[in-house]
C-alpha cells in the first residue's frame, strides 16, 4: 500500500514576528511496517537556519529559525510512504496473560529496556486508580494481553463520544474519563493511562489515517486530519497498534509519523515566536491511496 500525504500549516499573525523558532515532528519515520519514499518540506518565508535531527525516540525532527520580520508562516509537508502488512487479530493468539507481561516489565534484568521507557506517567498522562479500575473491566485475571487491549479499544470506542468541542489539549484525563467525550488525542491518552496504571507499557503514535468517502464524493485537500493512536508492548510480537477512535487493530490505513510517551513528545509543530500578537491558523491535511 502506497500513500501520499499533504499537511499544510499556515499561521497569520496580527503583527510582525521578529524571531521565530520552530520544532517539527512531520517527517515520517521508517520501521518494519513502513518505509518513507519521499519527503519534502516547504517553509515560507525561507528560514535563516534549519536542522534535521533525530530525537530521543528515534523520530525525525526538523528545526528552523527565522530572524527576518514576517506576518505569515507556512509549512507544507508532503510525503509518500509504503506500508507493509501487519499481523491480524487472528495471528496474535500467542499473547501472554497481561499479569505475566506486567511482572516481566518489573524485573530488573536489563531486558525489555525499550519497553520500560514507556511504563510511567508522562506530562499528559497521569496514572491513577480510577484509570486502573476502568481498565480492569477489560483486563480480567489471566486474560491475554492483546485480547484485553482490544477489548479496551472497543469499550473506549463504544462508551465515549467523539466531540471536537468538548475538550482542549489541557483537559485532564480524569475529566475525559468522567465526561466520556473527546477527540482521538484524548482517547489515545486515556487508553495509555489505563494501560500504564496497570503497569503495562505503551506508546502514543502521531500520524494520519485514510478516510473513506461515500461513493462519488470528490477527494478534497484538507478534508482529512492528523490522527493519533496507541501502541502496546507485548513480548513475542513487540509493539502492536490499537486505534480506540476507530475501534480497530491498526492494519494498512494508518500512516505513522512519530511516537513518544504522549502528545508532548511528538507535537507536529511546536515553536516560540517573539512578537506577532494574536494569530490565526489554517491547517489542511489530505491522505491519498496511490497504489495498493
Amino acid at each position, binding site marked *: 500500500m502506497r500513500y501520499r500525504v499533504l499537511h499544510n*500549516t499556515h*499561521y497569520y499573525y496580527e503583527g510582525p514576528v*521578529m*524571531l*521565530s*523558532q*520552530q*520544532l517539527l515532528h512531520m517527517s515520517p519515520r521508517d520501521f518494519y511496517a513502513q518505509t518513507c519514499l519521499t519527503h519534502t518540506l516547504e517553509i515560507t518565508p525561507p528560514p*535563516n*537556519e534549519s*536542522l534535521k535531527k533525530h*530525537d*530521543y525516540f528515534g523520530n525525525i525532527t526538523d*528545526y528552523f*529559525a527565522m*530572524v527576518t520580520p514576517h506576518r505569515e508562516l507556512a509549512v507544507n509537508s508532503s510525503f509518500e510512504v509504503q506500508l507493509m502488512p501487519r499481523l491480524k487479530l487472528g495471528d496474535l493468539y500467542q499473547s501472554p496473560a497481561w499479569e505475566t507481561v506486567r511482572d516481566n516489565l518489573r*524485573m*530488573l*534484568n*536489563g531486558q525489555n*529496556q525499550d519497553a*520500560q*521507557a*514507556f*511504563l*510511567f506517567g508522562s506530562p499528559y498522562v497521569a*496514572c491513577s*486508580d480510577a484509570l486502573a479500575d476502568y481498565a480492569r473491566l477489560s483486563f480480567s485475571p489471566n486474560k491475554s494481553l492483546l485480547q484485553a487491549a482490544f477489548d479496551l479499544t472497543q469499550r473506549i470506542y463504544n462508551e465515549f463520544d*467523539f466531540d*471536537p468541542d468538548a475538550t*482542549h*489539549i489541557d483537559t485532564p484525563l480524569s475529566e475525559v474519563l468522567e465526561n466520556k467525550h473527546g*477527540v*482521538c*488525542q484524548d482517547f489515545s491518552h486515556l487508553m495509555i493511562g489505563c494501560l500504564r496504571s496497570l503497569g503495562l507499557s505503551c506508546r502514543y503514535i502521531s500520524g494520519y*489515517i485514510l*478516510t473513506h468517502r461515500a461513493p462519488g464524493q470528490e477527494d478534497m485537500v484538507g*478534508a482529512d*486530519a*492528523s*490522527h493519533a493512536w496507541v501502541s502496546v508492548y507485548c513480548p513475542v510480537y513487540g509493539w502492536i497498534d490499537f486505534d480506540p*477512535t*476507530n475501534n480497530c487493530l491498526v492494519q494498512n490505513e494508518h500512516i505513522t509519523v512519530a511516537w513518544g510517551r504522549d*502528545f*508532548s*513528545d511528538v*507535537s*507536529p*509543530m*511546536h*515553536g*516560540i*515566536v*517573539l*512578537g*506577532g500578537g494574536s*494569530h490565526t*491558523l489554517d*491547517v489542511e*491535511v489530505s491522505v491519498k491511496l496511490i497504489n495498493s
Partner: protein
Amino acid sequence: MLESILNSYPGHQDRHDELLESSGKPRPHWQELISTLEQVSPAQMRERVESIQRQVRENGVTYNVYADTKGLQRPWGLDVLPFILPHEEWAGIEAAVIQRATLLNAILNDVYGDQNLLKEGILPPALIHGHAGFLRPCHGIKYPDNYSLHTYAVDLARSPDGRWWVVADRTQAPSGAGYALENRLIISSAFPELFRDLNVQRLSGFFATMRDSLAYWGRVCAANQSRSNPKIKALGDGEQPLTVLLTPGPYNETYHEQSYLAGYLGFPLVQGNDLTVRNGVVWLKTLSGLKPVHTILRRLDDDFCDPLELNSISVLGIAGLTEVARRGNVLIANSLGSNLLQTGALLGFLPSLCRRLLGESLLMPSVATWWCGEPHALETVIENLHTLVIKPAFPQINEQPIFGEDLNHAERDALIAKLCANPQNYVAQEQVKISQAPVWNAETGKDEPALGSLAVGLRLYACATPQGYVVMPGGLTRVASGQDERVITMQNGGTSKDTWVTAPYVTSYRSLLRKTSSSRDLVKGNANLSSRMVENLFWFGRYAVRNHHFSRLLRTAIHCFMEFTTEHRAMEWPTIQGLCNWYGLMSADNEENPRIKSSEALGSLAEPELSDELIESLLVSGIFSSDSPSLASHIQGFQTLAFNLRERLSSDNWRNINQMAQRFTDSPESATLSEGLLILDETTASLVTLSGFTLDGMTRDQGWRFMSIGRRIERLQFLCTLLSRALKMPAESNLDWVLELTDSIVTYRYRYSSQAEWLPMLDLILMDENNPNAMVFQLKGLIKYLAQITATYGSGGEGQFIGRLAALRLFDPDVVFRQGNTELIAWLDETYNASIALSDSLSHRFFSYSGQLQELSAQEISQQEIFNF
C-alpha cells in the same frame, strides 16, 4: 568564668554534642572559642550580635519567602558563633565529598549517554524514565572533559555515634555558597583574633578555582563557536570568555545570593530574556549589540531553561538553548537534566553504583533510605513506619515529608494505603538524631550570657576542575529553628552559622572580597550592560519623576480643594481636576491609560462638575486605592521595577524605596484627606532623596545616561501637559498652583514678591536656565545625553530637540508668554509629541530585544482540525 558559660549549656543525652565530650569537657578544637567567650563581657557580646544584625541588614542579605506576602524579603539569620571543624576530621569529609561528586557525575554521564546502568539492571528504570527530571532532549549531549556536574552541594548530618551521614544531594543548581561567603565576611570580623589564631582556611581560593575552571571550559566553547561560525572571532590572547550567571529573577528565594555571587565572581547577572539563540550560539543582548556567551552558570531549574525543547510553559528560559549545548557552543553549569540525581530514591543504590563505576566502596554512607518501589523495601518500610520519614521520590510529586511517629492509627493506615498504591513515588528515610552545636541566644542574654544549643546540619560545596573536584573548605551550617529539630530549612525560619575549618599550617592572610581585581574586571561592567538593565534604568528614571509629579499634583489639588470654597476656586479648579483626571488619579469613570492618550486631549477643558463629597472621595482613592490607578499602585509598581535593579542600587537607596512603599501598605483602610496630605509630604521627601542619590550616588555610565534621559522626558512631558492646559485658564486665574506644581514657587516669591503673573511665571518655568524644573533645562539635558548616545551608537535623535530649543528661544516673551497664546500652546503640543516619539524610538532601538516571548504551539492545530472519522 569557664564554668559559668558551660554550666548554662544544655546538654543532650541522645545526640552528639559538637562542643562537649561525653565527660562534659569541651572538645579541643572548641577550647579557644570558649576561652574567647569567657573573656568577652556580656555587653561586648551584645555589641557583636548587634553589629552582625546591622551588617546583615545593611548588606541587604535577605532570603525571599515566596509565601510571605508581607514584604518580599526576610533578613538572613546568622548566629554569632561559628561552627568549627578540626582539619583532621575535615580531611575525611573532603575525600568523601570528592568521591561522591565524582560518582554522581559518572551516573549522570551514563544516564545521558550509553545507559549501561539501565542495561545491566543496576538502576531501576523508574528512577530514570519515571523521573520528570529526566530530560530526553538532553540525551547524547557531550561535555568537555566529561563533566556534566560542575557544581555540587551535599547536606550532611552527624549521628549520635559521631559519624557523618549524607542526608541529601543537590545536583541541579545548588544554592547557599554565596551565603557561606557572606557569613564568613561578617563572622570573621566579629572574632578577628580567634579567626587568625585558629588558622581558619580561606574560602576565596575555592571561588577563584571555580571561576578559572568555568573560564577554561568557556574557552573550549569559544573555540567551537569560531570553528563553526566564521562570523565569530576566536578569543584573543588574554581575552576572557564571557560567563553569565542566569537567575530566575528577583522573586526567587535566593536572588540576593545570586546577585552577590555575580558581583563577587565578576559575572553579569542575567535573566532569560537577556539572552537569545541565533545560529546555534547564545548571545547576550547588550546596549552595543549581541555578544556571544561561552558559559552559563545557572540558577534556573533544568526544564525552565528552554521553552522550545524542554518545558514549553517556561517564560524564564532561552528558546533553543538545548541545541546550543548539543553543539558544544555553550557550557551550562550544571548541565541540563542534572536534577535527575536529586532524588532520595537513588541513595540506596549508591553503594553498588560506586563499586560498579569507581571500583571503590562509598566513603560516607547516606542516611538509611528505602525506595518503596522495591517490593522488599516497601515491606520493611511498613513494618518500621513509626521510626521513618516518608518523602516523595520525585520532584514532580509535591508533598511534605511525613514523620511516622506523628501519626495516629487512622493516619497510619491511610499512609500505608497510599504507599501501596504508588510505591515507586515514595522513599522512606531513617530519622537521625542529628548533632547539636552551641548557639548564642541574643534575646535572653540580658543578665548573663546564654550559651544555648540547637540541632545543626552541614551543607558543603564542591566544584569541578579539569583535574577533578575540589571542596570549599567551609560551608553553610544550617541551624534548626528550635521548634522542630527534625527539620532544618531556611524557609521555616532556621538560621545559619559560618563554618570554620582549621588548617594544619598557617594559611596566607588575604582579604576576601575582590582583592584580586584585574584591569579586565574594571572594563567589564559597562561593556556587558544588558539591554534589559538599560531599559529598566530608563523606566526607573521616568517613573521616579512621574511619581514625584503625581504626589505634587495630588497635594496641590488637595490644598486648592481645602483652602478655597467652591466659588473661590472656580477659575482654576477645572484645570487642576482635568490634570488629575488626565493622569488617572481622579478617575470616577475614566479607566484610560494616560500614556496612550494623544496630545489632542492635552488642553481639553470640558471637565464635569463634581460635588465636594465626590471630589474628596476621589482624591483619597487617588492616593490610597489599591484596585484603581492611584499613587499607591504607582509606587508599588515603582518598587517592583526597583527590585529588578537591585544590584545597581545601594542599600540606603533601596531602604528608602522600601520605606516609601511600606507607608502605603501600612496606611489605614479608610484614610482621610489629612492622612493623605501627610503621606504625600513623606512620599515627596523620599522622592527628593532618591533624585539626590541619582545625582550624587551613581556612576555616570551609559545606564545612568538612559536613566537621566528617562527623567528628562518625563519632566518635559509634564511641563507640556501642565502648561498647555494652564494657558487655557481664564486670564485672571490664580497661578500659584502652577508654580507650586513645578517646584518654582520659592524662587518666584524671592524674585518678585508679588502675586504670580503670566509673563514672569512663564519665563521662570520655560526659559530660566538655572531652574532645574524649567523647560530649557530639560531640553538642554536631553540634548546633552542624546549627543553622548550618538557619540557611541550613532544618531541618538537629539537634532529635533535642538530645533525645538531654538524655536523656544526665538519667541518674543512680551508677545508669546501670555495667557491663551496659541503659538505657545502649539509649541508645547509639538514638543510633547516629539518626546513620545523619542521614547518610542529609544525603546525600539535599544530595548527591542527584550520583548516578551510568546509560545506558538501546535496545540491549537490538533484541536482546530476537523476530526471526521
